[in-house]
């Protein structure tokens, strides 16, 4: 066995951490490459529309169910606490603030990270391990443009739309619960719900959803695009897409909340 040359370290910190750091750097490079390559002129619109269909419309059923249940259950669970203060009339405003400021975007992003992220990671990973991406490069199709930019853009646009949809469905679920229990009509419910919401809430929710969509698209595409080690790599890419996306979603949530609160 060869001895290490004296005074020269093999790793910067440790092998594992160095690998993570390199992975982070290659991720940042991937994002930079996205902005470098992105152009509406070179965008493959048909693929973009297809991805919007896959990411947005195909997730609509799942998102509807999740959003509705979220609104319904959140209202139901919040009632006893407010009831203690005789403040059940605040339910609409409480639920609407929670949904618009946080839940709609967060729930949508987590569901999309699970469904869309794993899908993209697995799809691009399998293309990578079966050398389809290499074949595209050889045939001058520019796979980054075709595969990555369209998917990231589709995620960035579809997820905010899905989050609005989630918010609407969640408020509908909340309204049903409030109507059944307190017989509040829709007009009064909407008045109470939107009286507490500001443009800042709506804006921050939109920005969050855009960032969540972009993150899910980038992380999933990166994981799949850089997959290796055969079929194991495909599974790993799908898994990594979901785990990293959700992790980053929460990091972004914290960051955006801090920034938003500084404007309040």
């Amino acid at each position, binding site marked *: 066995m060869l001895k290490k040359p004296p005074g020269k370290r093999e790793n910067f910190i440790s092998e594992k951490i160095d690998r993570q750091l390199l992975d982070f750097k290659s991720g940042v490079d991937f994002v930079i490459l996205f902005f470098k390559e992105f152009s509406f002129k070179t965008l493959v619109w048909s693929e973009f529309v297809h991805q919007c*269909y896959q990411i947005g419309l195909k997730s609509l059923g799942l998102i509807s169910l999740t959003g509705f249940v979220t609104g319904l259950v959140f209202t139901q669970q919040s009632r006893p606490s407010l009831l203690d*203060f005789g403040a059940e009339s605040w339910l609409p405003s409480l639920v609407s603030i929670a949904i618009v400021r946080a839940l709609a975007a967060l729930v949508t992003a987590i569901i999309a990270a699970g469904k869309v992220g794993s899908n993209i990671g697995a799809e691009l990973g399998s293309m990578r391990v079966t050398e389809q991406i290499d074949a595209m490069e050889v045939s001058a199709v520019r796979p980054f443009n075709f595969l990555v930019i369209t998917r990231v853009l589709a995620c960035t646009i579809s997820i905010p739309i899905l989050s609005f949809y989630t918010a609407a469905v969640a408020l509908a679920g909340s309204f049903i619960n409030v109507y059944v229990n307190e017989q509040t009509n829709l007009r009064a419910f909407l008045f109470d719900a939107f009286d507490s919401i500001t443009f800042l809430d709506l804006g921050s929710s939109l920005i969050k959803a855009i960032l969540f969509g972009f993150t899910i698209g980038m992380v999933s595409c990166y994981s799949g695009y850089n997959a290796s080690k055969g079929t194991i790599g495909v599974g790993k890419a799908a898994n990594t897409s979901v785990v990293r996306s959700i992790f980053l979603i929460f990091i972004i949530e914290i960051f955006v909340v801090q920034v938003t609160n500084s404007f309040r």
Partner: protein
Amino acid sequence: MNSTKKNAKVALFMLFGLIIFAGGIILISSMRKVFIKKISAVAVFQDVAGLTKGNNVWFSGVKVGTVESLEFIPDKGVKVNFQIEEKSQQYIFKDADVKISTDGLIGNPILVISGGNISQGVIEDGHIFKISREDSQQDMIKTLQENNKNILAITDDLKNMIASIDSGKGNLGKFLKDETLFNEVSQTVGQLRASSYQVTDFAKSLNQFGKKLNDPQGLPYQLATNKTIMPKLESTVNSLESGASSLQKTAGNAEVLVNEVKSDLNRITSSKNSAFGVLINNPEMADYMKSTMINVESGTEKLDENLEALQHSIFFRKYFRKKEEREKEAAKAMDSE
């Protein structure tokens, strides 16, 4: 799937998302009254109690605007700039005041405009409201705290008092601890109880008397209700009253007469020149009169003896015999009747 159909679905999906977003913006705008004409107003508070930009402005319980901004003014407090919708301007008058309250007991701070007199005219853009103060929750808590302290002090006093009583200090303590006193009080209570029985009996008697008063055959009832007796009684009383007044007059006259007699008597008795005055006041005259009376008495006795002797004389014996017979006959006639 057909590409056109897919494109249409995606377009519809995006449109739907945009509609929801636009709907949200419109709803918030209508709540925030973004597209409504507004006027600005100002109020300066010492303490804004957590009021922030966007909080509601109420007038008579109706939301009429929102807080626009807050800024510190050195030595004066916090200047609150707020907006009031133009359509509500006509109902808010210049002398209205503004205070900081809360939406419900634990709700957000709000600005509440109240009062105002129509004679002062409506507010204009840039109007500076005078402020009034409402007791904040802190004030209420402070008052409660003071109450708690008072209650604590009262409790302490009570505790000390009870301790004193328990140790036999003070009148109450002595009373509770002193057996003799207790027995006396106990006896007194017994007597009181007996008295109460008597009072009860008396009350019963009184009750019975009351019943008798209400008896139609009884005198009081008759007096109160009988229409024959009462007028007679009234006339009798009136006669008595007039008689009494006459008697009073007579008594007055008699008093005058007595006074006059008294004064005459005084005058007579005190005078030394009148015969009666001389008789009363002069002792020599009294002695003289006494000896005279003795002489008269002896003279009278001697005259009786002479008259007795005269009856037995021959000249008058017949006359006295006839007189005796007439007297006997008169006595007989009286007995037979």
